[in-house]
């Protein structure tokens, strides 16, 4: 457990010290919220900002998680991973430290989005909304940073990783329920959106904002996160003897 903490601290320190990266990663999601929520000429619902906020929150987490895999890729390319693997601490702590840090960074970004949303007039009517939203985002973050680190373990160079990342992130976002309600989707999109794990998170958060607790969504996310973690650990062990 200690190892996880130390690896987490290392990544956190390295991130905080690159000021530009911190600035960009905190501003970008907020910019998305403003552009999509306020500036988009099409409106699918009456109060579109209220509707889009959960979508942007989950999107922030999704992009942050998938982007996070590069941390592991670079540790691998630059020789850090080999140095760490030769240490006596349990090797899996490298993996868990990464997943935790990526998720944590995503939660920080989500916090900015949440703050901007409130400033723009999104109402939070229930005191359970905020903590449960964080819980859902956390589980969702574990799920996708687990996927990201697994991909990072399987590919050998940054370019392949970036290609997979961009191939996955946009389609996942646009085929989810982030931008429009199911009712106005074309038939094919409705099917894709209802299968997309991103939609599970968005619908659950949207439910929380409306005061309902969708146990189903959370259960599915937890189950998927656990499966992904198991696969990730398996791949990690295979990739490192």
């Amino acid at each position, binding site marked *: 457990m200690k*190892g996880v903490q130390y690896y987490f601290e290392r990544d956190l320190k*390295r991130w905080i*010290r690159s000021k530009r990266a911190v600035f960009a990663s905190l501003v970008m999601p907020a910019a998305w919220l403003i552009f999509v929520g306020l500036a988009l000429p099409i409106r699918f619902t009456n109060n579109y900002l209220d509707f889009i906020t959960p979508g942007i929150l989950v999107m922030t987490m999704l992009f942050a998680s998938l982007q996070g895999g590069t941390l592991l890729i670079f540790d691998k390319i*630059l020789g850090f991973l*080999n140095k*760490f693997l*030769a*240490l*006596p601490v349990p090797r899996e702590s490298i993996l868990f430290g990464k997943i935790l840090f990526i998720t944590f960074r995503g939660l920080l970004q989500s916090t900015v989005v949440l703050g901007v949303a409130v400033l723009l007039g999104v109402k939070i009517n229930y005191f359970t909304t905020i903590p449960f939203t964080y819980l859902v985002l956390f589980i969702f973050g574990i799920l996708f940073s687990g996927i990201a680190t697994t991909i990072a373990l399987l590919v050998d160079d940054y370019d392949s990783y970036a290609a997979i990342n961009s191939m996955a992130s946009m389609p996942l976002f646009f085929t989810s329920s982030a931008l429009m309600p199911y009712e106005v989707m074309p038939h094919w999109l409705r099917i894709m959106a209802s299968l997309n794990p991103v939609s599970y998170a968005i619908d659950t958060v949207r439910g929380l904002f409306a005061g309902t607790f969708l146990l189903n969504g959370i259960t599915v996310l937890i189950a998927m996160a656990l499966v992904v973690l198991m696969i990730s650990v398996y791949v990690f062990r295979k990739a490192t*003897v």
Partner: protein
Amino acid sequence: MSVKTYELTKYFNKRCAVDHINLEVGNEIFGLLGPNGAGKTTTVLMLTTLLKPSMGEAYVCGFDVLKEAKKVRNVISYVPQDMAVDIKLTGRENVLLFAKLYGVADRKNKVDEVLELMGLSERADDRVNSYSGGMRRRLELAQALVHEPQVLFLDEPTLGLDVSARRKMWEHISSLKKKGVTIFITTHYMDEADKFCDRVAIIDRGKIVAMDSPAKLKNSIGKDVITASVSGEFKGLNIEGITFLGREIDNIKFTAESGSEALPLLSEALSRQGLKVHSLSVREPSLDDVFLQKVGTQEEQGSFDDYKFRTLLRRRK
């Protein structure tokens, strides 16, 4: 024995990177020498539990690298050739991270101690991106030493360093040995291995072709090495007491028991073959010469390599 291997072998698909090697390393500075791609790093990766051997066994401080991997990791330190230090962290933070990961008891003092030992105390709180290459290397040594390993594996520790940084690096390595640390080094710098290693093994295409102290290896090929700088085609030579060692482009090397006596004989014989002899020199053998002799097979196709080298040069112009 600090390191011991029995028929250690690694296949990558069909290619044999390390071919049934047997090593015994005691408390010493042991150098694994060889050209790029000879299997040095692969060997180290297996000994540091980072790669699974295909065949054979290896023990570090008596622990099996496969079955007792965690115990092995407890007694070793490994510094790969990549110079992997976090440049956004300070030197002290870099070492402290390793102290924590190793679970070092009195970590603050221990970190100070190894930084001092590596001559980094003054710059310890600067970020590593302001460090020179030599300092980064020493920082890696500090990281490796913070838990007092019994065996230290260094993969090409002087790669890319300038002359004074190299000397400093070797001074530190030598002083570690005096403290009782076994040092297992890979390098392709023969002169450094010659000066600082207690024993060396020469590895070529995965096989150990020679293993002994540098002095004994040098003695084994003869007393003197004669280098003849010539132009023309060398057809081989048969003079008693003079042995052909190998060819490096226009330099043909021979060994002889007495260089000064061999010189006139050689000069005459080479001229008789129609070669133009530009210069002849006599010197004591170096590890390079040992290497040339042991890995000599590829040198016999000297003219072929020669041609390739020339086309390469021409392309550069």
